[in-house]
């Protein structure tokens, strides 16, 4: 599974890099695009199979965010979809706030 995770995450990053180098899209465009692709793969029922095959490597890419949102939207209801991604968002907000208070901007 470690090797499969390596290959899967690597391939996704490679695709993102190819898109970045050949278009004028920024990193922000590409991550947003990949979240939507993740939700679409969840819609097709593919992403859960990928996670089952690949392991945690499929959980760490941003596509997993879209898949989790979609799954929560159909299982818990559209208005409660954030429940399952709150771990990521809340921990990122807390660490961003603490880091911002502690550190200074490096020029």
């Amino acid at each position: 599974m470690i090797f499969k995770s390596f290959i899967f995450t690597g391939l996704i990053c490679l695709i993102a890099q190819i898109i970045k180098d050949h278009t004028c899209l920024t990193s922000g465009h590409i991550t947003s695009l990949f979240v939507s692709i993740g939700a679409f793969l969840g819609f097709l029922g593919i992403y859960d199979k990928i996670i089952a095959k690949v392991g945690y490597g499929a959980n760490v890419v941003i596509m997993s965010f879209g898949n989790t949102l979609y799954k929560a939207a159909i299982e818990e209801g559209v208005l409660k979809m954030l429940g399952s991604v709150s771990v990521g968002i809340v921990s990122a907000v807390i660490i961003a706030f603490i880091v911002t208070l502690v550190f200074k901007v490096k020029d």
Partner: protein
Amino acid sequence: MSYQELVNKLTPKENIYKNGVIAFLSGGVIGAISEILGRCFGPEMMLVIWIVLAGILTGLGVFDSIVEHFKMGVIIPITGFSHSLTSASLEYKKEGLVTGIGANCFKLAGSVILYGIISATILAGIRGVLCLL
């Protein structure tokens, strides 16, 4: 020589093959470490570990040079999400707690959350319609 030709000539050419290999390898290493972390601590703690690590490295000013070296390999994993939040709030820190950090921390990461929610809503709607048919 026109201005545009001069600009094209003087802009350093990035080696796209090298970029691809680096993105593949660095992304792959993050995936492989995630597999180990996930087995030890579970999927949610694995994400939290990456988020905290990326946030602290951003605060130390290290993450920007990591992005420069490893490109999309560190942006597409969850580390990129954490980095975008922390770097946006650090950048606007001088404008104050509310109008600076508060107003700008989701400047980059907001797009991921917005389009994630919109995509999931539309697709869940489509699924709902398909189930009725």
